[in-house]
């Protein structure tokens, strides 16, 4: 697959189709990826007004969309543990499995926001526990700068979160997911840096 960490083309195409059918938002709330949202909202000027008006209608059903990048060795297994242990956490986090938190190019994060994510979670092994020895240590430096720059450009700090979650920390994953979901719910929809089609 080329790029598109969020919403692969088929999901996006589906989102656009939904838009044409006038069914953006609500109906596909449960689907993974940012397709539905990205397909919504107007272009410039007056079209944006339409988006806002539409928002009021569906306000009651809105739930945050959180794109989560989870390292396959720790955090993805941690999320799996949360699931198999029957812990409940909000379905707002859409997980994408990456080989290592070091795989997360800051451009992925920007792209997620562009395509309609309300928040982005990057989860990896605890520093020192990386399967590849140092991937998360490089990631930590990179993400520290990227997060600083993103906030400098005006993004709220809560919208990009970085957590170290091990394979044994199902509980931590569930907690992070629900705390993050709550925080993003309080902030509301993200409109910043977002693509308007």
């Amino acid at each position, binding site marked *: 697959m080329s*790029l598109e960490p969020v919403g692969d083309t088929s999901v996006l195409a589906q989102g656009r189709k939904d838009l044409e059918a006038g069914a953006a938002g609500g109906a596909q709330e449960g689907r993974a990826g940012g397709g539905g949202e990205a397909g919504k909202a107007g*272009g410039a000027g007056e079209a944006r007004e339409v988006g806002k008006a539409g928002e009021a209608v569906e306000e009651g059903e809105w739930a945050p969309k959180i794109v989560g990048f989870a390292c396959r060795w720790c955090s993805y297994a941690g999320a799996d543990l949360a699931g198999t242990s029957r812990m409940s956490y909000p379905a707002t986090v859409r997980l994408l499995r990456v080989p290592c938190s070091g795989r997360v190019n800051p*451009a992925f994060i920007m792209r997620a926001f*562009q395509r309609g994510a309300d928040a982005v979670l990057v989860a990896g092994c605890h520093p020192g526990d990386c399967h590849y020895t140092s991937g998360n240590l490089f990631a930590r430096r990179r993400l520290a*700068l990227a*997060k600083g720059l993103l906030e400098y*450009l*005006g*993004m709220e*700090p809560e919208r990009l979160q970085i957590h170290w979650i091990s394979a044994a920390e199902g509980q931590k994953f569930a907690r992070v997911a629900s705390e993050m979901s709550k925080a993003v719910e309080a902030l509301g929809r993200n409109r910043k840096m977002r693509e308007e089609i």
Partner: protein
Amino acid sequence: MREYTASLKREAERLLSEGRVKTVIAFGPGIDPLAPIPAFAEDKDEASDLLVNAFSAPGLAKYVLDEVGGVEKPEHSVAVLARGCDSLGIARLIADKRVQRQSVVILGVHCDGVIDRGKLLALNPAFSRTKNIKSVAIGEDEVFVEAELADRSAVSLRGRPEDLLLDKCLKCLERDPVVFDIMLEPEAGTMLGRETGPTPVGDRGGVDQGEKEKSLRARRSLVAETEALSSESRYEFWARQFERCIRCYACRNVCPACSCRKCAFDVPDPEWVSKCTWLSEQFMFHFLRAFHVAGRCVGCGECERACPMGLPLSLLNDKLMKDVEEMFGIEDPHVPKESEPLGFYSPDDPEPWAKEVSEG
């Protein structure tokens, strides 16, 4: 900037006639005497047209890459005129292994700043009606420009050079080259340059650091002002700036740290940034451009100078430079080093997000 033209010509002629270099990169007369253009001398005749003066605005570092990038034969060596900012850029290209140290002869000059043509001409509104500059005289503490209007009447203006410097010169980090082979002498052609042999990057002897501290403080306070705004105002501020971007990529093309053979903005697949100029793409582009030079930016300010829309790009670069220095404890983050800040790590690197995470 003092007078170096005579010793520049002399050194250029010597290096070319000795066959030590193929090309000498410096400045030559443009159409407008207030805007000398980069010039490339390949023989003695062309060398006699070279010049450098207080109006020589463009940075020369990136031209070195065009001339010798990827070529390692000694006969392809170039000589290049380098002020502090140029030398930082050349050091960047060397550190990035895009240019071999031995294939470039650096002719260093001390520089106290370059005059901004726009600021100068704005002193007399009549100059907006003419492009016909007749004469320019730069004295120790005065610039005098004379021009002719369409009706053949003459207009003139006087200004103090120190009030008219380019914005990037007001934030200058290095007035003397950080790396050079030959330091040119300012005395109008009385002596040849003093040949020191190649110096290591960052060896600046007893250069006064006071001015640099002042520039650093100026940069820091601009960043701090922006940081002090709320998220909303910051977003609005940047949205207003980026909205004007025409995506000409001048900031990338001129940047000595942006020298990848294959640039993320040029490859069609993956299409990181589309050709659209709507706001979301502008944010993506400017985020990526700044981030791709994070920890490698030399603070030369060329991106901002080259920008036709006047975007405050240094404000982005300086933020990253400040973070690199504060978070990773890297001294003089603008001076290229063996390894770049994002190329290694420390087990105790800070986690600036830790305050938002409740552990338990």
